[in-house]
């Protein structure tokens, strides 16, 4: 079910956090790239009270290193469930998920960073203290990590806000801190579950650009769940379209535009075509179910 890879541009080898400036040109993500996340025949079935939910059925997909992949689909199609399975938060009923070759069995892997829709910042910690949380959990030395945390604050453009509490920050600002927190332990994989879903449209647009900028600076493998087709197409190399009940991969769509992306690309014919393709796929789902399939 995995589409053959097209040559899309990958993030630069050098990152801002190494102290060197990023180069404008990147090596392509091609067949030579390693697989970061591998899912094979993943099924997830559970009972919720009276209902039974077949959340994921036969999911098999490869996500390459430093690829930006989005998952879209209607509510209830299992995209968040898939993300949680990759994170190790949910056990799968069948199948395997491996990150960097190692199977995912339980949560707590240092090579994963997770960003939630609700930011999940702890109310009683300042922004900086929140960012340092993963370091505390993983037992990393405080000195080193604090320097990195401050760097990340600068990266997400929240320096000056170290000692603010989450309730003093707007939604967009909270998500920036959440992103910084997810990066502080330098994971190789970033999992994002509708992180901008709770923000208003304007802020969401801004945050998309910001995310692109941050991703340039610290290239990671990203799996991004969203219901917003434009957002998915704008951010990713590939978009996985899922259909509901049971959750399966309908199709994986390539986005034929180079990174770095900018606002003008929203009007390019390739972009429009991609979004149209995504929309058609989703509409087809609805019609398919109406025929009583």
């Amino acid at each position, binding site marked *: 079910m995995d589409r053959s890879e097209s040559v899309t541009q990958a993030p630069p080898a050098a990152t801002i956090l190494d102290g060197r400036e990023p180069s404008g040109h990147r090596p392509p993500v091609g067949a030579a790239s390693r697989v970061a996340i591998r899912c094979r025949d993943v099924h997830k079935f559970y009972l919720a009270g009276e209902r039974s939910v077949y959340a994921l059925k036969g999911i098999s997909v490869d996500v390459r290193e430093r690829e930006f992949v989005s998952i879209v689909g209607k509510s209830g199609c299992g995209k968040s469930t898939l993300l*949680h399975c990759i*994170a*190790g*938060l949910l056990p799968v009923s069948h199948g395997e998920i491996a990150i960097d070759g190692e199977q995912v069995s339980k*949560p*707590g*892997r*240092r090579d*994963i960073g*997770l960003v*939630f*829709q*609700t*930011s*999940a910042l*702890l*109310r*009683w910690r300042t922004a900086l203290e929140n960012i340092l*949380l*993963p370091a*505390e*959990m*993983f037992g990393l030395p405080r000195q080193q990590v604090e320097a990195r945390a401050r760097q990340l604050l600068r990266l997400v*453009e929240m*320096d000056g806000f170290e000692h603010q*509490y989450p*309730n003093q920050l*707007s*939604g*967009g*600002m909270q998500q920036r801190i959440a992103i910084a927190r997810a990066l502080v332990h330098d994971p190789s994989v970033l999992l994002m579950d509708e992180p901008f879903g709770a923000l208003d449209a*304007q*802020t969401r*647009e*801004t945050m998309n650009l*910001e995310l692109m900028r941050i991703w340039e600076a610290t290239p990671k493998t990203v799996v991004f769940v969203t219901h917003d087709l434009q957002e998915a197409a704008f951010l990713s190399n590939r978009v996985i379209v899922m259909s509901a009940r049971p959750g399966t991969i309908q199709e994986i769509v390539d986005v034929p535009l180079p990174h770095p992306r900018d606002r003008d690309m929203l009007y390019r014919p390739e972009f429009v075509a991609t979004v149209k393709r995504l929309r058609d796929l989703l509409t087809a789902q609805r019609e398919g179910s109406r025929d009583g399939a």
Partner: protein
Amino acid sequence: MAQTADRPSSLSTFSVAPASHLVDGREVTSTITRRELEEREIRTVRARRRRELITHNAARVAVFIAVLVGWHLLAGRYDSNLLPGPLQTYAGLVRGWKLISAGASATLVEIGLGFGLGVFGGLVLGSIIGVSKTMQGVLHPFLVLYQAVPKTGLAPMIVLILGFGILPKVVLAAMTAVFPVLENTIIGVQRVEEDSQRLFRVLGASPAQTYFKLRLINALPYIMTGLRGAIVLATVSVVVTEFVAGRIGLGAVMMTGYAQLDTPMVFGALLALTAIGLACYFTVCLVETLVLRWFNLELPAS
């Protein structure tokens, strides 16, 4: 630093010059600036708040005086050994001052110890029970039973075992105070946002780490509410035990006065008890405010 859309804008970016608009193609200048509007609004609100402060507090004082006067008038129709008025109460207070002040300190000590013990027990037990769903299932009917039956009814039984001194009062106060703290700790420790719990799991936190860094702190507002309930219950419990085992404490003083038909002294002791009850309660409220402020867990005033 690039400007971003979600930064709060500062007032200084507003121009002081009046705004102008086009009406039917002709320029019309507003005669008022934003700053002026803002200042006018602040002044009106401030004035109203000041007025309200005065009227509300005046009304409260009026109510207090009305009650006092009403009491005085009502008591005038009865013998002072049946219903003493405010003046006789004060006289009774002065008369029995030695007894009352000694009783007051004893009662205060009993409340303090009972409260402290109960809170400690409630926190420890609540932590243990709160994290284990199995324990909650097993203990559920017992907890309901504990809540339903007024533990103060155990006073005679406890006095028989522990005597007439401070101990029975402290023990019963602890037994009563335990419950609100226990219950609220259990609730608070469980009512943690899903995403925060997931965050800790993804970070591979041990159960102890999750408990102390997330669940317990999250439970603090609830625990503080429990503390308030606990101090009230501890006070009540101490008073009732003193009624039953009347030798030390203000409750005992009241029972002495009751037996001797010295009603003004009973009222005087009651007054002292009221003062102690209030002092204890507000101390706990103060602690609550300070703790919540330290952890930035205060809720914005509604």
